[in-house]
């Protein structure tokens, strides 16, 4: 969009796909360039991405930002359905429409040690966090060797990355949850992003050990700006919108939808 004011010209813009890198089967890093600089983006904030052609798929898809420069932005996109398959099949130099950054990211934790626990593509916000705060500790869990391309790529960007695999084929056998037992409630904080099952397990483990924990939720959403009410999650404070009240929540607040 070429808006007349700063607000809408920053909210939705045309971007060019400048680079597409396949990390492993059906998992891509997409790099975009915008004419205008992006505002500061917090780790955990997301964008809605859609093609500029046609109406099918109709809606943008939400992705956490995994890297940013002045007018550059990177997303980690796994093929999960028809919409993401189309996005990942676009050639370089294709123009797309991007809405965002949206939502609230992980809150800064001055004076605390931050442990980031990621399940596969849940590594995305922590790549950005590491870009901004080198001191954080990042632990990545993957099912096994099939995701090795993600682990190798992430390790290049995050020196000291701890990788866990469920089948023990890559890194340490097990899951990133193992590190929670070593944390100190007064000094350490957990940030987590990944599949819902993993987030529930992190929530439970952190609650047991009284470790402050923030989790980034992933839900279906249509608009990303609080209009559709399609992305609500049940919390101790009632229903909250993942897009504008989250996607990052204090894990003690989240009651899930089931």
């Amino acid at each position, binding site marked *: 969009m070429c808006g007349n004011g700063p607000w809408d010209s920053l909210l939705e813009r045309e971007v060019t796909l400048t680079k597409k890198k396949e990390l492993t089967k059906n998992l891509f890093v997409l790099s975009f360039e915008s004419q205008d600089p992006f505002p500061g983006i917090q780790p955990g904030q997301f964008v809605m991405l859609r093609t500029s052609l046609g109406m099918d798929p109709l809606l943008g898809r939400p992705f956490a930002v995994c890297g940013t420069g002045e007018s550059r932005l990177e997303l980690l996109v796994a093929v999960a359905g028809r919409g993401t398959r189309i996005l990942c099949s676009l050639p370089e130099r294709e123009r797309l429409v991007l809405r965002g950054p949206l939502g609230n990211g992980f809150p800064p934790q001055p004076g605390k040690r931050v442990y980031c626990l990621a399940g596969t593509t849940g590594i995305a916000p922590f790549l950005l966090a590491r870009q901004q705060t080198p001191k954080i500790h990042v632990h990545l869990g993957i099912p096994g060797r099939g995701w090795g391309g993600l682990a190798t790529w992430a390790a290049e960007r995050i020196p000291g990355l701890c990788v866990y695999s469920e089948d023990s084929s890559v890194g340490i056998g097990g899951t990133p949850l193992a590190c929670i037992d070593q944390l100190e409630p007064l000094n350490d904080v957990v940030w987590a992003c990944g599949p819902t099952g993993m987030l529930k397990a992190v929530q439970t483990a952190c609650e047991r050990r009284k470790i402050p924990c923030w989790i980034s939720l992933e839900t279906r959403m249509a608009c990303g700006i609080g209009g*559709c009410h*399609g992305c609500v999650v049940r919390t101790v404070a009632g229903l909250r919108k993942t897009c504008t009240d989250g996607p990052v929540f204090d894990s003690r607040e989240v009651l899930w939808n089931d």
Partner: protein
Amino acid sequence: MIDRPVSSSISIGGVLLRSPLIIASGTWPHEPEYWKGPICSFVGAACTKALTLRPREGNPGIRLWETPCGLLNSIGLQNPGVDSFLRDDLPKISSGDVGIVVNVAMESEEETAEVLARLSVFEDRFLSMELNISCPNVDAGGMAWGSDPVLAARAVDLARQCWRGPLWAKLPPQCGNIAEVARAVEEAGADALVVANTWLGMAMDPVSEKPVFSRNVAGLSGPAIFPLALRLVWEVSSSVHIPVIGCGGISKTEDVISMMLAGASAVAIGTFHFSDLGCFRNIGRGLLEHLAAKGYSSPMDLIGKGKK
């Protein structure tokens, strides 16, 4: 041909809008930054979420399901209730420069009367009140108020007694004979008709082998339903004397022109802006260019022209 200035303004039964593009109910955030500024420069009015007397949590489970060129939703009228809206939301959205159409979900007669009584205190803050009669009438076995001419007229008659300002009735698309419902609603005192609402649809999950939505059915919207909505606008506008606002699947300038040629005085856009926030400006500019190219001075010159 002499060039004449083209105005985008229109009048809906005396309610003056700066553009025929209205933001449909249930789709727009109640946050102040969305009710002013360039994003709204071609927006004639915006409808609020549907309000009920008490807060409503809406439906559990999956609420959205994308379809080819469309979207199924099962939000379930989630809203904070009329009191919370008046206390928390109205001051925020009133700070902008977009006219507010307050949408009221028709519940029981007592509840609806109470909602309208509370809103009436702030009547001057609203351009109009839009009564959503697609909701089920619990006292009549859950049948939608707008599905039957007698029930629909009863709903609008009640609202007319409780609300002195402009009253728009939003009809469901699926009813026995929409022209009969429209005429009954006109006679009961509606000032305009919004034609129509989402179409009942369904999605099945092949993995769980169950319906996707907890209530089984859901409302279909988006460009996929545009031809269906256009046909309803043609039919209804031929049957009543009050203005008709076309609603359903509008995504481009040609859709607005088509709706107005079929008899609409304005249009409501909902689902498409989920995808494209620039659609109001792009559609609005395209409309003005079309009017200028045709030598018209106002979008009102298009209304019903396709029938002549």
